[in-house]
């Protein structure tokens, strides 16, 4: 398949999926949930109020027209106003993105570094008591709800011992990184690192039994060189893929951490929006995140083709 044809086909597929997401969100919010006007107008609304709200939201028009309106909103990136604060949804999204990224980017970098380091270590010592121990500890650690880590961590480190502020946020990115984001990042790391270690360990072990490793060993290379140069380079592809796949998650923020530590990010905004039934906000975020996911997948496929010439041949 020629490169251009592949590009066009893949792009078309992504756009089709995006259309599917828009349709799903539309069906979910305009049909499955019943009449959105009853939620916006409240329980005490009269029939006249309801009719007014319906007219204002355009719900009295045919469904296909409403759907086209929604597609138009997505194309323009303008999702109207929030039902609860009457701020434009795009403005909310923009202002909440910064705090979420301040929290999540350090978390992603630290998590990748720690997980790769520990995975390399336990893969090199596979079968030893350390490997068994890490496996056992991470299984048990993963089975404790992340809520418990956050509750206990916030109570012990911030409230009891006073090493960190219990909650809060400032306008300066530097202060946030130094003071307010510290404990949430560490707790997030604690929660997310165990599954990553298990995953990366399996990626590395898959490479460690390959023929090229035996060849390298037969050449007389040191175990360290084999592990860090030959094995890691090959295991890097699935690891990088996994990190890339995590990127769209940056847009949803960290729901629980942001809520516990009162960080004004997107995750906290989503939870508030669900509590307040703020439909435009939830719809907008869902579509934004799906777009990001599809874009990352698309770019990831292009990278693959570029990195590994065999991919295009199938």
């Amino acid at each position, binding site marked *: 398949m020629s490169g251009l044809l592949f590009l066009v086909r893949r792009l078309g*597929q992504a756009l089709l999926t995006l259309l599917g997401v828009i349709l799903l969100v539309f069906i979910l919010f305009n049909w499955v949930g019943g009449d959105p006007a009853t*939620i916006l107008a409240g329980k005490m609304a009269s029939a006249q109020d309801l009719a007014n709200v319906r007219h204002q939201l355009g719900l009295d028009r045919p469904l296909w027209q409403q759907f086209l309106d929604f597609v138009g909103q997505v194309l323009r990136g303008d999702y109207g106003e929030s039902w609860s604060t009457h701020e434009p949804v795009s403005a909310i999204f923009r202002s909440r993105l910064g705090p979420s990224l301040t929290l999540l980017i350090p978390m992603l970098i630290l998590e990748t570094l720690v997980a790769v380091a520990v995975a390399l270590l336990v893969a090199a010592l596979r079968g030893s008591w350390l490997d068994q121990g890490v496996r056992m500890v991470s299984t048990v650690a*993963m*089975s404790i709800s992340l809520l418990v880590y956050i509750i206990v961590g916030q109570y012990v480190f911030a409230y009891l011992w006073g090493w960190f502020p219990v909650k809060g946020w400032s306008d300066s990115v530097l202060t946030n990184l130094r003071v307010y984001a510290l404990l949430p990042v560490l707790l997030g790391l604690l929660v997310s690192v165990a599954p990553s270690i298990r995953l990366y360990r399996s990626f590395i072990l898959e490479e460690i039994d390959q023929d090229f490793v035996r060849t390298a060993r037969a050449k007389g290379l040191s175990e360290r060189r084999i592990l860090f140069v030959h094995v890691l380079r090959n295991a890097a592809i699935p690891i990088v893929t996994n990190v890339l796949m995590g990127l769209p998650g940056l847009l949803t923020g960290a729901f629980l951490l942001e809520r516990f530590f009162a960080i004004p990010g997107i995750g906290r905004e989503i939870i508030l929006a669900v509590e307040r039934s703020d439909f435009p906000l*939830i719809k907008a975020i869902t579509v934004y995140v799906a777009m990001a996911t599809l874009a990352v997948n698309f770019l990831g496929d292009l990278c693959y083709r570029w990195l590994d010439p065999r991919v295009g041949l199938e």
Partner: protein
Amino acid sequence: MTVQMDSSMRSESAWSLALRRLWRDPVGRISLGVVTFYLVLVGMVLAGWLGTRWNDPVAVNYAPPTWFVSAANRVTLPAGEAWDRTLVVPLYGWTDPLEPLWSEARAAAQRIQPEPVSYRLTLPFGADKWGRDVGQKVLKGTQTSVWVGLVAAFVATLIGTVLGALAGYYGRVVDDLLNGFYGVLTSIPYLLLVFAVAAVLQQKGVGTLILILGLTGWTGVFRLVRAEYMKHRTREYVLAAGALGASHGRRVWVHILPNVGHVVLVQFSQNLVGFIKSEVILSFLGFGVPVSSVSWGSMLNEAQNELILGKWWQLVVTTVAMAVFVTASSLLTDALRDALDPRLNS
């Protein structure tokens, strides 16, 4: 030449072999035991033999946990005490505008003459803010969480298996459509999708929770079952069944399904763990079980506020109950995978 078949010559079925392999693995045996113990507990709570008094105030507020009970472990509160009101208003020489109502209420309380209630001072697992027994609550909470996880996992596995089988077996348009749907669902992060559905459904309850988790969580099963069916549909035994006149439906459900059953079972047990974790988060945030019920998530929600007051027992009891079950289920999933996939065993 005919060979006489008797029971001793019949070869063991793959499933009983797998069960035997599972039993030989100490981790598999112990985790199976723990999971079975929890399932029995859930069954007993569902049947109404255990945990029925979780909503009764049986102890004083925040009664601490202790296992060494002295003889005088009860306090009897005089009845009707709640009606005595320290009046601030008369101090200023005013008459209390509510006094007629209060005297009426006091008179009514006198007429009823409620029994003095006795409350326990300590409980084995302590009490919560309202004096409810944490031991009883954790039984009921375990039932809710595990039950939601089980039924939702069943729903998700059923949807994923049926759609995966259709997509993998028939291919072409069916596959394109279902795979497109899969692509749509997986391009939205799981927890965000769950929140969106929770926001739309607007009502809380165990049924809603099961619906949310089951309808959003089938994609993993779908992907694996579809891949298995694509592999199996051209195998000789399926072609042979077709040549003998077996219909497509028969080939899909009778011939191939038992051969991919191990994938389905492992996915079910993996979903169970995932759904329980999601249920706990949803209920913690207040989008899950209603206040008239209790689950691990709603208990953790109460425990968060109690911890600041130094009342740690509800948090510890809930965390341990959940961690033991989830650890056992995860280990059982791994052990099942090893036992069911003969290629992994030499």
